[in-house]
């Protein structure tokens, strides 16, 4: 891999070292930047101008397209700078001055181009901002009105230069808070200001207007950001880029799982920050875990032991039955001659693709019926652990059979022939000779089945009444429904408690998991 990249790099240098004059380089950088801009503009247009309205026609009330549009426009300048800087990167190793010069000049030109676009379209820094049309400054006493636009909103409302603003409604504000509040306001929003004029305490309501003042000075922060970004791109080692992208893409998950773990060990959390009872950072505690075993969360009393045992029973029964039934059928399909084998194989594959979850409604009736049968009904009827496990077994069966068949297919035929000649029946061949040899397959399918059973929510929730047979996920959902967000640290503890076996499998059996969650399809591709 490394050697290959080295070869690749030398080749690339050779290709790239065709002498290009500086203007040629700059032209190429601008061309790449412009292409990026056009692509993102077209994307933004498609999102907000085509796809969005199309779904709106169908009555879909979505904001996904708005978000995508905004993301495209937000990314637009940066992608453009990357496009320009990619030309400069060729010289990072050989001629650093040339690289930086080229990158900065292309960025400045692209920045100018984009800013011009913003200026014409009243967008970005030139977008109309909510304003009260007066200039303010922070003083000891409060926010002082320094200047006021003639005929503007503030003057119309009756404010004068020298007034000192102290609060919006009853909330005392400083200039920062005032600007923040103003920034979030929409056109026409009324802001009731309390202010002092001399010794008088006055109140006036000012209506927010949108002002596009288009001050070129507003461009400076953007330009410095652009240049800093460009410098980073020029110096960024190429092999870091995929890592940065991967971490970036994964960040919501990292943050989310980080929260669960933090939350269970802290008094309470705001966002990702653990806090103690006095809202200070910290608050490490094991109380959340204790509450699980004490059996009282937010006033809801419970006993975790039977819930845990139900979860375990569902998962264990399911694992055992899935393994047994799948391996038997897989063995027959792989190793035996019988009429209908082709049919069963294709049927298994169709079932593998078929979404069993659509059959939730009729299976309810099947379980009710099974429940009416004496003895069997107590084992696998409606509202029994057996019934719940069996439904999930059925759902996992097509995958299981298919997977097991694949594993049996990989055992040499001579093994089977040898056993038959030694005097074994087909059953003993299956049980004593072949099953021990597909242990990795059994392990993989077993883990898959166990995770499926352990995590099961919708089937236990649908086919059980009351907490008699509810498992951890069903119980957790009841908890979530019953508690306010402030008790979530205890809820999170239950969640993490449920996650423990999953994490264990994740750490020790990643390879199996990666293989099996592709649906056992890797071999056939």
């Amino acid at each position, binding site marked *: 891999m490394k050697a290959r990249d080295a070869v690749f790099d030398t080749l690339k240098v050779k290709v790239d070292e065709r002498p290009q004059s500086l203007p040629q380089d700059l032209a190429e950088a601008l061309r790449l930047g412009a292409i990026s801009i056009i692509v993102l503009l077209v994307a933004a247009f498609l999102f907000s101008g085509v796809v969005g309205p199309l779904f709106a026609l169908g009555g879909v009330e979505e904001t996904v397209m708005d978000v995508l549009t905004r993301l495209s426009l937000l990314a637009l300048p940066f992608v453009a700078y990357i496009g320009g800087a990619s030309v400069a990167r060729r010289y990072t190793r050989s001629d650093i001055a040339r690289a930086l010069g080229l990158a900065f000049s292309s960025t400045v030109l692209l920045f100018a181009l984009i800013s011009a676009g913003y200026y014409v379209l009243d967008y970005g820094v030139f977008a109309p901002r909510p304003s009260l049309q007066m200039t303010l400054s922070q003083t000891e006493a409060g926010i002082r009105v320094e200047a006021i636009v003639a005929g503007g909103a503030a003057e119309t409302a009756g404010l004068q230069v020298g007034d000192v603003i102290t609060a919006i409604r009853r909330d005392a504000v400083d200039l920062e808070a005032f600007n923040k509040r103003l920034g979030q306001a929409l056109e026409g929003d009324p802001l009731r200001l309390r202010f002092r004029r001399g010794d008088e305490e006055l109140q006036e309501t000012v209506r927010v207007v949108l002002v596009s003042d288009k001050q070129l000075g507003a461009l400076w922060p953007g330009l410095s950001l652009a240049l800093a970004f460009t410098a980073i791109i020029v110096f960024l080692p190429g092999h870091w880029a995929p890592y940065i992208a991967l971490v970036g893409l994964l960040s919501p998950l990292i943050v989310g799982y980080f929260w669960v773990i933090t939350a269970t060990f802290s008094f309470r959390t705001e966002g990702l920050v653990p806090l103690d009872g006095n809202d200070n950072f910290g608050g490490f505690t094991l109380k959340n875990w204790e509450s699980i075993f004490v059996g009282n969360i937010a006033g809801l009393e419970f006993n975790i032991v039977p819930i845990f045992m139900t979860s375990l029973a569902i998962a264990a029964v399911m694992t055992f039955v899935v393994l047994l039934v799948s391996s038997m059928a897989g063995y027959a399909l792989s190793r035996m001659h019988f009429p209908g084998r082709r049919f069963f194989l294709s049927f298994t594959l169709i079932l593998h693709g078929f979404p069993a979850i659509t059959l939730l409604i009729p299976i309810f009736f099947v379980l009710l019926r099974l429940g009416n049968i004496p003895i069997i009904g107590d084992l696998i009827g409606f509202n029994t652990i057996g019934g719940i496990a069996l439904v999930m077994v059925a759902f996992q069966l097509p995958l299981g059979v298919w997977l097991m068949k694949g594993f049996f297919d990989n055992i*040499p035929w*001579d*093994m089977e022939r040898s056993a*038959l*000649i*030694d*005097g*074994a*029946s087909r059953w003993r061949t299956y049980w004593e*000779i072949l099953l021990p040899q597909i242990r990795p397959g059994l392990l993989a399918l077993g883990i898959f089945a166990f995770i499926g059973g352990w995590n099961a929510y919708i089937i236990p929730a649908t086919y059980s009444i009351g907490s008699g047979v509810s498992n951890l996920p069903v119980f957790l959902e009841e908890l979530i429904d019953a508690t306010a967000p402030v008790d979530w640290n205890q809820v999170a503890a239950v969640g993490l408690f449920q996650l423990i076996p999953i994490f264990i499998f994740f750490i020790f059996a990643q390879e199996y998991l990666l293989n099996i969650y592709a649906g056992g399809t890797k071999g056939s591709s």
Partner: protein
Amino acid sequence: MKVTIDNLSKKFGDVVGVENLTLHIEDGEFVAFLGPSGCGKTTTLLTLAGIYKPTDGVIRFGERIVNTVQPKDRNIGMVFQSYALYPHMTVFQNIAYPLKLKKVSKADQHDRVRQVANVMGIGELLDRRPGQLSGGQQQRVALGRALVKEPDVLLFDEPLSNLDARLRLTMRGEIKHLQKDLGITSIYVTHDQVEAMTMADRIAVMSGGHLQAFDSPDELYDRPKTQFVAGFVGNPPMNFVDVSVQASNGRFFAETESLRLEVQKARGAPPASHDGPVVMGIRPEDIQIASNGLVSGEIFVVEPLGREDLIDVRVGRHSFLLLADTENRHQAGERVSLAFDMEQVQFFDPETEKSLLWQ
């Protein structure tokens, strides 16, 4: 136990595995099935084992028709090319498995496994698993497992092909020795004609699902009944030349545009009476580089084999393989003269590929 195969055919759908095979194997005989891969020899063996059911024909073990008898009820032992040892069982468990299935008592199992293991020289390895054994040791375990139930018939499916050359030589001797000691009827499938020649009492040469010949090794070598057998048995293979055999004044000559060789009457008369050209076959060891040779040619390639050199000599547009001592280092491009031992020469009908000398 006599094994009798009559008119056996085995087809897989439209694909012919073996067709119309008749073979009578005597009690205690060691028979090799020899042929190139895909010739039907393994299919026949698996049909004998009961793994495949015959499409047509009859198989008898002794007087019993076993066509539909299950493998486990045939009392056979089989050694596979891959050995097919059960990887999750120890050597002891592997060898004892057939006994366990026969519900032999634990004590008896123990005794018999020990006995077999000692015969095979693997008494020390009983607690190991197959994965911890060398190829040769695995081979012995497989043989032990096949022998432990005292089978009526032993089947071997290319058992030596996964071993290195040295070990192969040793095992060859051991298997043959063991077979003669125990007197168990044995059928041995191989594509290696040296194995077949050295071990078997009789060899069944197969090709394309058909039996080509069934004879003792010497017969096959000296009096091959078809061109296929002549070409397949013997290494390096027999040289074939298209010739016409002419009789003149009671003498017989095999002729091409660049050759004219005299053949003695016993060998020359049958091909001479054949209409049109015939195929002449001559083994490499029957051609010598000799100063008084009648035929001159040019050396094309010299392949040193160690003990001797394999030399490809071009005579006109013919090419002859021959073996020469390494002492006279011959070089490619060298011109040599060849002497043919015409008493060993074979003649075949080019259409039917049958021998013109032996029927």
